């Protein structure tokens, strides 16, 4: 099993969710996150006092899938989240040792 963590733009969330759902993804978790990569932050000024805002708000989507589904899902996310501009985000993939469905106690891919 793999865990995909995709950090994307807020306004792309609906597109990505829709594309993943159409691609047989059974569930996902999203989190509001802040961070920076190549996209620079911005400056805010309050009564003349400047604040450099380095951390840009993004949305993180977590999806878990069977190994053979991975490439399909990555392609789906790439297509639906891309604008081509700096700040589109990143995708991280990690090996996942186990999944457990709390209701039934099923484990592994059965629990997905």
């Amino acid at each position, binding site marked *: 099993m793999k865990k995909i963590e995709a950090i994307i733009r807020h306004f792309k969330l609906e597109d990505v969710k829709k594309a993943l759902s159409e691609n047989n993804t059974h569930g996902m978790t999203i989190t509001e996150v802040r961070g920076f990569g190549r996209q620079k932050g911005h400056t805010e000024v309050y009564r003349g*006092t400047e604040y450099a805002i380095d951390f840009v708000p993004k949305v993180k989507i977590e999806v878990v899938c069977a190994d053979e589904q991975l490439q399909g899902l990555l392609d789906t996310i790439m297509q639906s989240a891309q604008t081509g501009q700096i700040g589109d985000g990143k995708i991280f993939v990690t090996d996942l040792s186990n999944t457990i469905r709390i209701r039934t106690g099923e484990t592994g891919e059965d629990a997905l």
Partner: protein
Amino acid sequence: MRRYLRTAVATMLALGTVLVVSSNAFGQEEAIKANTLAANNGWMLICSALVLFMTAPGLAMFYGGLVRRKNVLSVMMQCVFLMGLMTVIWALYGYSLAFGGDPSDGDSKWIGNGEFLLMHNVSRYWDEEAGAPVTPMFDDDLQLTTLSHMLFQGMFFIITPALICGAFAERMKFSAMTLFLILWGTLVYCPLCHWVWDGGILAFGTGFKGGALDFAGGTVVHISSGVSALVCALILGKRLGHGTVDLRPHNMTYTALGAAMLWVGWFGFNAGSELASDDLTPSVFAVTHFSAAAGAVTWAVVEWLSRGKPSVLGAASGAVAGLVCITPAAGFVNPMSALLMGFSAGIVCYIACSSIKATFGYDDSLDAFGVHGIGGTLGAVLTGVFATRACWDIDNGNKLGLLEGGGTRVLIGQIVACLVTWVFAAVATLILLKIVDVLVGLRATQDSEVQGLDITDHGEEGYIFN
């Protein structure tokens, strides 16, 4: 300010033409008086409510939005608690210290006496001779009850100390704030109020160096609170992490709406200071509105030109600066002067809040000094420039301001009153802070500051989105 016979006569004449009156001349006069009283009651009670509305929700939201989310309740609590605390003091002895006695009858020019202690000579009483209840009158010529006057002025006694809270926001202990503002209200506000508005040492005409024209509180409210705020900011020191951690306002929507509420409430503050609904009142209302408008536009445009973007906080701050600036002048200047005063306030207060604060490095968290201290002083001085007898002939037909050819007489009185207020407020605040520091300590602990005063001082959180 207390008005004179002229106003009452003008009102009576005006009312006399529309009233259905008895053929008896005495009855006619009584009927006019009763109608004037009814009009004044209606106006003054609405204005009193408007001024209370300025402290909360107005100031509570304006200031509350400007702090970090962990301190939003501490600021709102300061406003709401002061609505209670200062009112209790006002009822017990504050009103008496400020307005008790009449210096023109030989009473003290420095401090009020016991005339209104515990609401004596304020509350309604039973008149044995008449066999009827009586409401004491503050001024018979003006048709103003003492109760209306006490209530209206009592709302000023709430908002003035609440303004100071902007300087020590996010770092002063609640206990220290409470003790400090009880002392400040008693020993700074009440005397100053007596000096300027009850025939004391700064009253126009009879005061030191000719005294001050202060229609609704340039010296009494804004300079006193603004300068005291600066001293508080200096004595308490900067907030933890000032200059390095993120101190951005947590909710600009509160701040924008709070400023709008202040703008509305200010109509009561200034136009109510006429203490009557008469021929001058609409003029006061108009100049208040015009100055706020010019201030809002100016501050935002200055930002627009110098930084490329007009900010919401800029427009909101500019409106407040314009309102502060017109406050001492409100009954003495015409609408076009008000536009100029709002314009000046927008520029000068912007510079005070951005450049001056940065240059000297004090942490006046919410710019109580930059807006109220500087704006109030600017307004008091400009009153000496723009005041005109055409608005209020307060000096027996003599010209008033510099602009209408009254010479420097009024201007000098204004500057002297500013200096006296600055020095008095600064020295008294310094002494009171030292006393409070010894008794309970001024500053919240480092832990408390990091965690936020909402939790450590009040055991609550502002936002729980479950």
